[in-house]
């Protein structure tokens, strides 16, 4: 059997279809929304849920389109240095954005603190009241934190345990999640009875246990810095979003999602 193709009639049908597709594409390109700019945000996992909420508002008012790549600060930093096509970097610390500024991967002077992280002590049980004393009064097996070697929230969690003089009790019970999200998952699934994780991550998900908001004085500030990356120096979408991120409206939303911000602290 042979397949006869490209009869004169077939060719004209195909070219007519292509013409229609081309004109449709042109019409779409000419529409105001798609002519707006787009940018790719690299964000530390803990801020990803908050970022998605902020982006929804930003996109509807500006017409720009943003896409998000979430990961750990260390991994994203390594990817940026290796030439990943990110336009902005919302880190979970200050060190990595500062390094990017110094190595000229980021635009000098674009760095600012967009949020300060807060910690929460969480329990698997839905308790009436949860406070650090419970860790001394009731026996338990596992205590989940983010890995202090890779996650700033893990470092802060260790500081909190030290400030509460719980280090000796909890050290042998520690399990380390890859990030605060995994540490919370260990608690939410009942594999660890307690944990110290980012307040924002607890608030963003369907967590049914109890939480105690850790006073900010118990650990060094978890300042999270944002920076504009060199390839996006003149990208209106990236520049627009970073100024939106500094706005009072954005700050209030960030504060409502479990962070401290400049204005919310006063």
């Amino acid at each position, binding site marked *: 059997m042979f397949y006869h193709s490209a009869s004169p009639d077939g060719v004209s049908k195909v070219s007519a279809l292509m013409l229609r597709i081309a004109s449709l594409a042109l019409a779409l390109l000419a529409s105001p929304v798609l002519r707006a700019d787009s940018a790719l945000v690299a964000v530390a996992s803990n801020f990803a849920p908050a970022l998605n909420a902020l982006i929804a508002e930003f996109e509807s008012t500006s017409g720009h389109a943003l896409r998000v790549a979430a990961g750990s600060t260390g991994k994203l930093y390594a990817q940026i240095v290796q030439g990943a096509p990110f336009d902005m970097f919302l880190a979970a610390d200050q060190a990595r954005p500062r390094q990017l500024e110094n190595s000229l991967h980021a635009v000098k002077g674009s760095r600012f603190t967009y949020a300060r992280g807060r910690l929460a002590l969480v329990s698997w049980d839905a308790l009436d009241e949860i406070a650090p004393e419970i860790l001394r009064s009731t026996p338990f097996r596992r205590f989940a934190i983010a890995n202090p070697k*890779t996650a700033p929230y893990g470092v802060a969690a260790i500081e909190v345990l030290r400030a509460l003089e719980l280090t000796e009790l909890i050290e042998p019970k520690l399990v380390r999640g890859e990030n605060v999200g995994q540490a919370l998952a260990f608690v939410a699934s009942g594999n660890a009875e307690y944990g110290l994780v980012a307040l924002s991550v607890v608030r963003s998900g369907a967590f049914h246990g109890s939480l105690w908001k850790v006073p900010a004085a118990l650990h060094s500030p978890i300042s999270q810095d944002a920076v504009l990356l060199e390839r996006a120096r003149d990208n209106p979408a990236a520049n627009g979003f970073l100024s939106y991120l500094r706005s009072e409206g954005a700050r209030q939303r960030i504060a409502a999602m479990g962070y401290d911000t400049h204005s919310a602290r006063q």
Partner: protein
Amino acid sequence: MPDLSPVWLSVALAAITTMLLLVIGTPLAWWLSQTRSRLRPVIEAVTALPLVLPPTVLGFYLLILLSPTSAFGGFWIDLTGDTLTFSFTGLVLASIIYSLPFMVQPLVSAFEANGRNVMEAAASLRASPLDAFFRVAVPLSARGFVTAMVLTFTHTLGEFGVVLMVGGNIPGETRVVSIAIYEHVETLQYADAHMLSAGLLTFALLVLVAVYALNRRSAVRVG
């Protein structure tokens, strides 16, 4: 020089998993190679599942199943006083599931390649089925056993996703070599990451070359 304890932990995990899978996998592979049951495709499919499923699926189910709040996890705590998640025992259990096809599939192929005639011949010489299995089927399948054990060992040595999900990164307990490499990369300690990675790469390559070289040799002599 990086901390080498994750290497020994991985080797211990791989060795124990291989031994246990040899005990579990051999009768299973034998049954699969001999049976005419209509259940065979189902059992074969279940055995092959870890090959096609992402480790996240297994890791997620294990996190739920092994949790102290689940019936099985609670039973285990009553029995042993220890949890299965975040423990070496839990990793052994996870590895047995994860590496099952690497033990069973080469053994099934080896048993099938022997054909039924040799077993019938042994039976006609009044060998008991168990006797025939150990004196005839096992020696004839020697290369299958070597392949199965080496693949199981190396595959378990390279296990990462499941451990990441149920291990909790505890030094000496669940921080295996793949997790250690991951952490070195995350913390930009590339020198340590290079050393462990190159070591693993060299070892895996040498072992696989040895297995393939062995498999090319002429038929195994039985006598």
